[in-house]
């Protein structure tokens, strides 16, 4: 009987939103890295995903992990997970998250993520926490976000 993955590490190592030019629009880390390592990872992820096109899968082996990613217009949404994790589940977790952003920002565009960067973290924390999926119902997440929006 095999134990799936290393149970003491987070499932999700980090979540990144990057544009094609390599600018990071969101970096959420669930594992300890110092600033230099983070920068290196960001550059490597960018290098890996931007060379891929429609003939490739949405999964890339990356160091001892793997990256599940999808491109939405000019933005790459990347989730770095354990090699034993469920690829399609995380691919759709990304889509679920993007649909929430889209609803919350009313047809979200890259600039929304720039000017409201501090709110994007709130959205992330509603849906992901401690490297795990926290909430998947778009209805519930949006309800909560709208409530928070109304607070002073």
């Amino acid at each position, binding site marked *: *009987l095999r*134990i*799936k993955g290393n*149970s*003491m*590490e*987070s499932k999700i190592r980090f979540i990144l939103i990057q544009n094609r030019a390599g600018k*990071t629009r969101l970096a959420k880390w669930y594992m300890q890295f110092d600033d230099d390592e983070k920068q290196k990872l960001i550059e*490597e992820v960018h*290098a*890996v995903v931007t*060379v891929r096109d429609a*003939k*490739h*899968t949405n*999964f*890339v*082996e*990356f*160091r*001892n992990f793997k990256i599940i990613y999808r491109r939405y217009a000019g933005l790459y949404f990347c989730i770095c997970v354990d*090699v034993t994790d*469920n*690829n*399609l*589940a995380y*691919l*759709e*977790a990304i*889509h*679920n998250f993007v649909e929430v952003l889209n609803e919350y*920002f009313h047809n979200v*565009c890259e*600039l*929304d993520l*720039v*000017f*409201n*960067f*501090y*709110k994007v*973290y709130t959205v992330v*924390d509603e849906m992901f*926490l*401690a*490297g*795990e*999926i*926290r*909430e*998947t*119902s778009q*209805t*519930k997440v949006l309800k*909560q976000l709208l409530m*928070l*929006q*109304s*607070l*002073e």
Partner: protein
Amino acid sequence: MPAVSKGDGMRGLAVFISDIRNCKSKEAEIKRINKELANIRSKFKGDKALDGYSKKKYVCKLLFIFLLGHDIDFGHMEAVNLLSSNKYTEKQIGYLFISVLVNSNSELIRLINNAIKNDLSSRNPTFMCLALHCIANVGSREMAEAFAGEIPRILVAGDTMDSVKQSAALCLLRLYKTSPDLVLMGEWTSRVVHLLNDQHMGVVTAAISLITCLSQKNPDEFKTCVSLAVSRLSRIVSSASTDLQDYTYYFVPAPWLSCKLLRLLQCYPPPEDGAVKGRLVECLETILNKAQEPPKSKKVQHSNAKNAILFEAISLIIHYDSEPNLLVRACNQLGQFLQHRETNLRYLALESMCTLASSEFSHEAVKTHIETVINALKTERDVSVRQRAADLLYAMCDRSNAKQIVAEMLSYLETADYSIREEMVLKVAILAEKYAVDYSWYVDTILNLIRIAGDYVSEEVWYRVIQIVINRDDVQGYAAKTVFEALQAPACHENMVKVGGYILGEFGNLIAGDPRSSPLVQFNLLHSKFHLCSVPTRALLLSAYIKFINLFPETKSTIQEVLRSDSQIRNSDVELQQRAVEYLKLSSIASTDVLATVLEEMPPFPERESSILAKLKKKKGPGAVSVNELEEGKREAGELNGGGERGGDTHSPTSLPLFSQTTITHSFSHIISSSLVLEDRMQNVVKNNHKQMFFCF
């Protein structure tokens, strides 16, 4: 500029961000930032106490500057002050700042923990969640010490709001991972497990991650979760599409929760209770059935969600490895995916089938797909998919299809990316050895490996082919002939010269009768490569030359002349010089009998050391292995010592005359003959490849 929300405005922040975006150069940006930093510094130091709104705005600006990539060395105190505000927007920014810019100043830590404590006991769910999220994001030892006792209480308390429970569960998970000694589950275990029955699916989703981690570390204490998980899964899988409204995603009920439940079940063996097991099997069958039904939606999100559950279910079926019917059905379903138009599915099917291949129940079913997999190897455009196909071929290989698979892998190797060649070479070598019935096929395969991917043929591989040829009488002539032919190629790889030099040195006599491979022809062939080779190869060739003198006295003068030349006896490399000098002397003074004794044919290599012995030795050191264990190891003679009367010899290096010892120690005596060496090597290479994979397109 997009509309900033009415709630908190922070117009100053929006203006600042615009300014930065409008900077035409890096220098301009730095200038603008420094200006702002100076402004903020003066505001923070100012006589007037800042109001909450301003503090929030400036802390947020600092955060933005930090996220742009500039160092921030102040603002922590102000951020911590924001935590004690009773306004959500101010608290939120405070918590965000300290979560992103974690500071290890003990005074700050004390203040932060104090603020968190207040928020946790505030009974305001929004504030409680902010505090819990901060702990989950930072997860420091100090926080664990302060709160590890409190959080389980919050998690299971009857009056805790659902959203707070979700956050508490995952917060506790984080603390457990970073400071397991401080999180004592004892009294909370059954109530935490019971969260699987919560009516709020989000709570279940969060709690199950906690339970899964705890189960992996304490399986016995948490085993009651199995039947609860099965019930929950069963209810989801059989639910109508109108149930679970909020948790239905593109017509798929609770896909992520279903996957998590299936994952939790993989921490345990199949349920012992018959009813529970029956219900679970029914569940798995339903999931497999659904995969065959026409889809409820054409959207890829629908099929991805459905298939996420399917793949996780198949993973569970493979983990149990006990339901032949389910295993075969899983295999058939994956077989269909092998030809799906979506690359993702083909990739996942290949990957999943690889594990199915090793189950005795499904191994044969997997083999039926060999043609599709071979086709994938040849035609897939994404290299990672081709690699999964190669892995699957390796996994499904057995006696019945070894020749076909090895041939396909060799052909793939001719055009494979450089990053995966070493792994492929090792795989082919292992398969060729494992399934060889006919050792001439084995020799051909290895020589082909050297020809196609010589640079990636590591020492372990070509040492192995030599060991096998030495130990098997029946293939020695064939090896000599084949290697002789291979050396004819104008540009042959140095590894081929090494193998060829060694084999001709030992067995060249077996083909010397044919004038096309007479002794002098063999010598000239080898010597023609000499100057192109590295020092270790030349050393090997010199040994071959002295062996030739023994085997073929007619070559003595020709070879002696070569040995005598300045480039040999005055060679700047000590090893080469020593060999040339000693071999030259040996050939002049030794009588034919002595020469024949010294240069006697190599004895068979010592038997394969059992892997158990090897592991024992590694753990305990060489002296720790008992005589009995050694005897057992000897009895584990491999198929490789197939040479009849030559099998079973164990010549230790020290029992042979001095000169032979030199040649042996210079050659292979340090190798413990075992294909397990190759397999170890392969595991290491595969691990390294995962790190380097992104270099291939």
